[in-house]
């Protein structure tokens, strides 16, 4: 196909004759590149998309949220035991058991139990919680998370499930 003067894109400064014929070649070229970039863009968006994109692995090698912590009698009466790797406190008062999160509700530091003061204290920004996990000082907005704790019917041992939180009043009486 021969290019004629009328096919050329005219960009004269006088502004005359500024037009060009939109040929089949133009259309196919535009459609081809358009599809190409649409497809590439689609893949890119899908690649970086949230929840299922590249940066969201489907499997993570982390500790199971549900785990056995031992027999009730292995925790002394009126004690607070920190299970460091599991990030929970097992609080026992008489026959009552609670599983409290170690994670401060302010910004996620690990709180410590102070035996002398009988409270939980956060080393990062000074939040304080009573023995039952309720916040009373510092920037913490909420009580420490309370996790579901049950007794395994077969072994009679305490089982904590960190994927399930329960209300602050909840306690397991053995």
């Amino acid at each position, binding site marked *: 196909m021969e290019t004629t003067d009328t096919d050329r894109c005219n960009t004269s400064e006088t502004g005359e004759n500024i037009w060009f014929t939109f040929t089949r070649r133009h259309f196919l070229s535009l459609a081809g590149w358009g599809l190409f970039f649409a497809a590439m863009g689609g893949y890119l968006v899908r690649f970086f998309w*949230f*929840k*299922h994109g590249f940066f*969201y*692995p489907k499997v993570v*090698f982390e500790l199971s949220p549900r785990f056995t912590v031992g027999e009730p009698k292995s925790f002394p009466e009126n004690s607070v035991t920190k299970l460091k790797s599991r990030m929970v406190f097992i609080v026992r008062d008489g026959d009552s058991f609670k599983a409290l999160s170690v994670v401060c509700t302010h910004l*996620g530091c*690990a709180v410590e139990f102070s035996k002398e003061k009988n409270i939980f204290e956060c080393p990062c920004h000074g939040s304080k919680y009573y023995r039952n996990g309720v916040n009373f000082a510092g920037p913490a907005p909420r009580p420490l998370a309370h996790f579901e704790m049950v007794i395994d019917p077969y072994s009679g041992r305490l089982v904590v499930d960190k994927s399930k939180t329960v209300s602050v009043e909840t306690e397991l009486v053995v």
Partner: protein
Amino acid sequence: MKDPNSEKKFKDSVNDIWRSVFRHGYTDTPRNRVLQIISNVWLHLHPARVREHGTKLRFTWCMGGITFFIFLVEVITGVLLMFYYTPDVNKAFADTIDLMYTVPFGRLMRNVHRWGAHAMVITVSVHMFRVFITGSYKPPRRFNWVMGVFLLVITFLLSFTGYLLPWDQLGYWAITVGMNMGGATPFLGHEGPFSQLLGITASNDIRFSLVGGTTIAAPALLRAYVWHCVAIPVIAVALMMVHFWRIRKDGGISGRL
């Protein structure tokens, strides 16, 4: 045996090599001075001509230049640190200690890298302050101000990702706190507002994508390492090229337009 012309031949060949590198002589004319600059790959990064007010420190404080210089220092010391550092939770802290106590100049390199990072945040902030009070963000430099804001964020992200790498208590808890702030992002963070609308939980929110898990553990260290040592520096260099190129296109480093 000795070639009487050998000395001349040697000098000529040396001269040839010299002239193949530096193709313009010492003739002191305005044209030749420009040629000397633009035909040299390193010098051509500089403008061929600098206006006199551009050299006045009182106006620019050279803060952008100092920031770039510190960035180069960080690249050099950072590459040296990478020779001894392993981004593995069992090794990272020990490697850091080894760098301090067993590697010749290791303590110097680490401290220069660390103090350089602090200095860069300061100089980049002072640079921004200077640009603001001299009104250098005004047209036609608006686009470059935006590039500069991106570079400021990049500087913060470099500092933040580098914080975790020693895998010590300070960095670990700083990243824990910082990432929990990320978890409060609207829509994309599991503790942020409106996240329920998108079905976001702790195992698919923006924090999860940044640390590669629900807690700060091995994947978080590796991600911080890759972002810190490769990805963010590449982005930073790309943005810096635009930033520097744009300074000249917008009329030079200082003065009226």
